[in-house]
């Protein structure tokens, strides 16, 4: 028995084992980037066919980095690191007669290898005691529970989180979003305890749980709920614009002019298809537009599109009027999509990162000069 233990220790002490494990991890990782991981079953069957799909699935090749044998490889690698480091400790203590610089240099590899153990320990802590999930909160509402990733389970947070406002800002004259932002508030035992405007790259943290801005969307609107705010500017004679609030489908008469304005249609994401027909590219308010018709004594005299984000763009050949689309409401409530993460191991991982850089620095720049 003792002999067997010694043999096993011998295997873990060998640098050949280290290199074998490193090469195995690298090769398996290559496979993991060639076969797309954790996709939908239909896609796999489409790519590989039914038989091959079942085989790959059975072997864990469709979720390599979460498979038991990949985890085993990592554990073996860790064991190898720990055994090698412990074995060489007595040697380091006998190097007393060397100068200070050389002794610091000798520490380098230990710090480096130890840091890798720390990083993996940190990720293990996160896997065991942490969670990842998400929650969608409509503007003005609160949520107390979140959905966990990769399962249909919900998790009670023990406090509630409220979204007061969600906003997308765009670069000027561009369709590229500049920032997604949500005003969030934490309500714990009936009291509002914390407020923060979160953005991508700037999450909110409360009681060890982080809330990341990750997506957004719009709930489908209730019929007849949408209202637009328009400014009608008659061309010529320098007259000032007339502002009005108008519901979708509604017709309103402008006093003392004999003109009537109709809010004909609304699209949240205005675009043209190949045949130049107007379509909405998505349900998201990326390019909200309204079609407005203006009647003079019952006869159509203006028919054109106006854009919320391009107030100076005229979508109409008729130049009797200019219609500015100022704002709209009731077009379906926007919601913010938050990623919710608890990772108690993250500080352990950061510590490991620091030690890794320190260890490499010591190894490379305090080595004995040859």
């Amino acid at each position: 028995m003792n002999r067997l233990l010694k043999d096993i220790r011998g295997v873990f002490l060998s640098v050949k084992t280290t290199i074998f494990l490193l090469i195995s991890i690298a090769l398996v990782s290559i496979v993991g980037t060639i076969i797309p991981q954790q996709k939908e079953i239909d896609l796999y069957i489409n790519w590989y066919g039914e038989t091959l799909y079942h085989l790959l699935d059975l072997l864990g090749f469709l979720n390599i980095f979460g498979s038991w044998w990949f985890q085993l490889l990592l554990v073996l690698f860790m064991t190898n690191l720990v055994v090698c480091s412990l074995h060489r400790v007595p040697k380091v203590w006998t190097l007393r007669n060397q100068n200070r610089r050389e002794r610091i240099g000798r520490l380098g590899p230990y710090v480096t290898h130890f840091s890798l153990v720390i990083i993996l320990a940190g990720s293990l802590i996160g896997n065991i005691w942490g969670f990842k999930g998400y929650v969608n909160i409509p503007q003005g509402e609160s949520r107390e529970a979140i959905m966990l990733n990769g399962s249909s389970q919900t998790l009670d947070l023990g406090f509630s989180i409220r979204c007061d406002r969600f906003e997308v800002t765009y670069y000027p004259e561009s369709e590229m979003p500049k920032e997604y932002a949500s005003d969030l508030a934490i309500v714990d035992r009936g009291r509002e305890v914390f407020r923060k405007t979160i953005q991508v790259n700037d999450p909110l943290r409360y009681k060890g749980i982080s809330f990341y801005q990750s997506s957004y969307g719009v709930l489908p609107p209730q019929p007849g709920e949408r209202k637009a705010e328009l400014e009608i500017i008659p061309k010529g004679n320098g007259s000032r614009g007339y502002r009005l609030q108008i519901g979708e489908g509604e017709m309103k008469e402008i006093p003392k002019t004999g003109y009537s304005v109709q809010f004909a249609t609304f699209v949240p994401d205005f675009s043209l298809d190949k045949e130049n027909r107007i379509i909405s590219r998505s349900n998201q308010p990326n390019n909200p537009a309204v079609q407005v018709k203006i009647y003079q004594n019952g006869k159509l005299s203006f028919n054109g599109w106006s854009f919320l984000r391009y107030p100076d763009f005229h979508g109409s050949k008729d130049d009797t009027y200019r219609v500015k689309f100022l704002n709209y409401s009731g077009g379906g409530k926007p919601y913010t999509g938050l990623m919710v993460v608890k990772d108690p191991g993250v500080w352990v991982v950061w510590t490991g990162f620091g030690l890794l850089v320190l260890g490499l620095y010591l190894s490379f720049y305090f080595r004995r000069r040859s």
Partner: protein
Amino acid sequence: MINHIFFQLTTFTYLLSSILYFFYLGIKKEGFGKAGSWIALFGFAINTGAMIIRYFESHRLGIGYVPLSNMYESMVFFAWSIVGLYLLFERFYHSRGLGAFVLPLGFLAMGVTMLSLSPEIRPLMPALQSSWLVYHVITSFLGYAAFAISFGVSLIYLVKKTDREGNSLLPDYKALEIINYKAIIVGFLLFTVGILTGAVWANYAWGTYWSWDPKETWSLITWIVYAILLHAKYTGRWGGRKMAYISIAGFVAVLFTYWGVNYLISGLHSYAS
């Protein structure tokens, strides 16, 4: 776009410098080597200036970012890092012969960029607006550049004839091994910092520091290749030629991490194309 014109000029200067270094090796006249170095330094200055101009041009467009955010910008920074690091090595090791193998890499990086990538300055999506991105790109690409130098040195090691009959302007085997090792430790340290700052950034942007997306996985594979090389070196079991082959394999992994993943495999980093 004034910056693009200056980058084109940079490309031309790196080509000129490469040719001068070739002549230096072939004709063995000191003057060609000196001219190659000075032209390389001149190109490096233009490259630096062009990046600064691009920074100001992005601000003038109302976008305003550090120009290290798309493929075009990373490539010109890659070329800058290769030439800058090479000039440092040349100063320290007093060997101009290496230039004939390294400057062409700087020229290739610039040439490919000028021919195939859009110089347009586009607004940054929200996830890319982070100072961690800047640290991540700077350290990663300085690391890549050091690996590029190791690649060039290893090529020389393999094509060189024996010390006695080979080109007298190229360093001897021993010196090449030392330069290769120095380039790799500089590269390994910087590349490690690059991976770690990338992980910190991912944690701020996506709530997870490691998600095994193809870019991350390939950076780990590259890291492992160089880790194996360093261990083989410390245990002293592999000779110079074998080390040269692994250095080249390491640089192939670098190139795959940098381009292969973007163009052949998609993932979180696919916006960087």
